[in-house]
C-alpha cells in the first residue's frame, strides 16, 4: 500500500451514520516527517471543493508526528478558508494530544523571505549613504581615541612612575623579539627576489652592477620598513585587538574600571610605547636581512663578490638613505598600535565581534600605513631628501 492515499469521494447517503452529501477525504498510511514530501504533494494535487461539507476521515492513519499533524490542520484550515465546513472523524485517541498541541499554536503562515534591502536600487544608494556617514563617525571616534591616548601619555610624562614597565617589556618581547624570525626571513627573501629580478632587467644594458643601487635604495628607503609594518600589523596589531576584545567580552575592561584602574594606562600605553620602541629596531634588522639576501643573490647570479657589493653599495646610498626609511617606523608603529587597541575596545560583547574587529583592525592599519608612507614620500620629495 502506498504510504498515503487520499481520495475525495461522495459519501453515499444510505450508509448508517453517514452525513449525506458530505465529501470525504480519507487519509491513510504514515504521516511523518519522512513521508511529508509525498503527503504534501498529494494534498496539493487535490482540487479543493468550495462551500461544501467535508469530513476528514483519519481512520486509516497508522502513525503521525508533528509534521503530519501540521499537514492535517493545514488541510482543515485551507478547506475552511474556501467556505467549507470541516469535521474530523475517526481520529485515534492516541493521536489526540498531538493534534491538540499543534492546534493550540494555531496555523502560522510562514514568514515570507524578504528581498534583502541591498538588492534594490534604493537599498544600494542607502548603503552608500550609510557607509559615508559611518566613515565620518568612525573618523570622529578614532580622533577622540587619539586625543584620549595623547592626554594619558602627557599625564605619564608628568608622573613617570605610573608607567607599567613590566607590561611594556613583555609587549616588546612579544611584538619585537618574537617577530624577529618571520621578519628576517621575509626580508631576506624579498632581497633575493629583488636582486634576481633587478639583475635580469639590468643585464640587458650591461649594467648588472646597478642591481646593488636598486637594492640599496628600494630596501633601505621603502621596502624594509614597509614590509616590517605590514607583518607587524598582521601579527601584533591583530593580537592587540583580539586581546583587548576578549577582555571586553569577559567584562575584564569593566572590572578594571571598577577597580579604579584606567584601561588606557594599563592596556594601551604599554602596547603603544613598546611597539614604537621596537619597530625601528625591527626595521633596521629587516634592512640588514634584505641586504644580506640581495648580496648573496648578486654573488650567486651575477658573480658580484661581497667586497665589490659593499663598495658599490657605499657609492649608491647616501648618508641618510637608511634613516629616511627607519624614521618612518615609529610612526607606523604608532598607527598600528593605536588602531589595534581602538578596534579592541570597539568589540561588542560577543565572540563573533572579536573576529570582525580583528579583521577590520588589520585592514585599517595596513591601509593607513600605506597612506602615511605615500605622505612621507611626498614630503621627502618636497624637502629634496
Amino acid at each position, binding site marked *: 500500500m502506498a504510504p498515503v492515499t487520499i481520495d475525495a469521494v461522495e459519501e453515499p447517503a444510505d450508509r448508517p451514520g453517514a452525513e449525506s452529501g458530505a465529501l470525504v477525504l480519507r487519509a491513510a498510511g504514515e504521516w511523518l*516527517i*519522512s513521508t511529508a*514530501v509525498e503527503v504534501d504533494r498529494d494534498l496539493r494535487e487535490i482540487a479543493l471543493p468550495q462551500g461544501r461539507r467535508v469530513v476528514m476521515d483519519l481512520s486509516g492513519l497508522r502513525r503521525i508526528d508533528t*509534521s503530519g499533524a501540521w499537514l492535517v490542520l493545514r488541510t482543515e484550515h485551507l478547506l475552511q478558508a474556501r467556505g467549507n465546513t470541516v469535521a474530523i472523524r475517526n481520529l485515534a485517541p492516541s493521536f489526540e494530544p498531538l493534534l491538540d*498541541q*499543534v492546534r493550540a499554536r494555531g496555523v*502560522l503562515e*510562514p514568514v515570507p523571505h524578504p528581498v534583502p534591502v541591498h538588492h534594490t536600487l534604493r537599498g544600494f544608494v542607502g548603503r552608500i549613504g550609510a557607509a559615508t556617514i559611518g566613515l565620518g563617525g568612525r573618523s570622529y571616534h578614532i580622533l577622540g581615541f587619539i586625543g584620549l591616548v595623547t592626554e594619558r601619555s602627557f599625564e605619564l610624562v608628568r608622573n613617570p612612575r605610573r608607567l607599567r614597565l613590566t607590561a611594556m617589556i613583555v609587549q616588546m618581547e612579544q611584538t619585537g623579539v618574537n617577530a624577529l624570525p618571520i621578519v628576517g626571513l621575509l626580508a631576506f627573501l624579498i632581497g633575493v627576489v629583488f636582486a634576481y629580478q633587478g639583475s635580469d632587467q639590468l643585464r640587458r644594458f650591461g649594467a648588472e652592477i646597478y642591481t646593488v643601487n636598486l637594492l640599496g635604495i628600494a630596501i633601505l628607503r621603502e621596502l624594509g620598513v614597509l614590509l616590517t609594518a605590514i607583518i607587524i600589523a598582521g601579527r601584533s596589531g591583530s593580537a592587540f585587538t583580539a586581546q583587548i576584545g576578549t577582555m571586553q567580552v569577559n567584562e575584564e575592561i569593566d572590572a578594571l574600571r571598577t577597580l579604579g584602574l584606567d584601561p588606557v594606562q594599563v592596556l594601551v600605553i604599554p602596547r603603544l610605547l613598546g611597539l614604537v620602541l621596537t619597530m625601528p629596531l625591527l626595521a633596521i634588522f629587516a634592512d640588514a636581512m634584505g641586504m644580506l639576501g640581495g648580496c648573496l643573490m648578486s654573488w650567486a647570479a651575477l658573480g658580484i663578490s661581497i667586497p665589490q657589493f659593499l663598495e658599490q653599495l657605499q657609492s649608491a646610498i647616501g648618508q641618510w638613505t637608511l634613516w629616511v626609511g627607519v624614521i618612518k617606523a615609529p610612526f607606523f608603529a604608532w598607527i598600528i598600535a593605536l588602531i589595534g587597541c581602538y578596534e579592541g575596545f570597539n568589540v561588542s560583547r560577543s565572540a563573533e565581534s572579536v573576529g570582525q574587529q580583528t579583521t577590520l583592525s588589520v585592514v585599517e592599519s595596513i591601509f593607513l600605513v600605506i597612506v602615511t608612507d605615500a605622505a612621507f614620500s611626498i614630503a621627502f620629495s618636497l624637502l629634496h631628501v
Partner: protein
Amino acid sequence: MASEPDEAIIRVRGLVNRFGAQTVHDGVDLDVRRGEVLGVVGGSGTGKSVLLRTIVGLNRPAAGTIEVFGRNVLELEEQEWHDIERRWGVLFQDGALFSSLTVAQNIEVPLKEHYRMPLRLMDEIAAYKVGMVGLPEEAGDKFPSQLSGGMRKRAGLARALSLDPEIVFLDEPTAGLDPIAAASFDQLIRDLKSSLGLTVFMVTHDLDSLFAICDRVAVLVDKKVRVGTLDQHLRDDHPWIRSYFHGPRGRAAHPAGTEAGQEAAAVPA
C-alpha cells in the same frame, strides 16, 4: 507507538571517561526509559555535560558501552549513525544556533540535510515549529543575536525538535533564565513530552525544574551514577546527595516545588 513503559531507550554500561590523569566517570551504569524525563545532577566538574556529550557521540569514552534504540552507538557505520542522528535532538547550553542564519533557517538545516523537501513545505514546518516552542511568529525571521537568552533557548529547542526526534538531550535548559522564563520553559518541556511522547535527558542545576518535571533523577557522585525517583534520593544518606536535596535551596524548592509548578502553569507563557 505502543511500547512497554520500562523499555530502556538508552542503556549505558561500565562507562569510563578520562581526561589526562583525571578520571571523570568510572563505571557509570544508566538506563533511560522510553517516555520519561530524566534529570542529571551533580557538582561542578562531575561530568554531567561530558555524559551527555558521550552519549550523543561528541566524546569518545575510554571504556564502556552505550546503546541507544538498542544499537551500540560506539560501533556504528556512518550510514547507521546518520539514521540514528535524526531520531534524537540536542539543545546546547546557549542554544548553539548558527549565527549567520535566521531562526527559521536554523530549523530548516536538519530538514535540508536529511530530507529533500520543497522550500514551501520546509518554510511551513519551520514556521509551525517556531510557534510550537512558544516563540512569536515574527521570531522566525530574526537572527540569533536579535533574540533574548530565553528566546534563543526556545529557538534551539525548535531546531532540536525539527525532525520529530524520540529523544531530546537538554544541557542546562533553564540556566541563565529568569524564574518566570524558566518556569514556562519547564511547562513547555512537560507539554511536549505529553503530546509528543518525548524521552528527555536533561542536565540541570535547577532544583525547581527537577521537582517540577523530572520522573527520575540521576545523581553523579563518586564518579558513578545513582538513579532513582526524587523520594528515593530524599531518603539517600550519601553526604553530597543529602546536602544537595536537604540544603537550604533544596528545602526551599521541595515542599513548594509542586505548587510552584502548578502556579507557573497558570501563568500564560
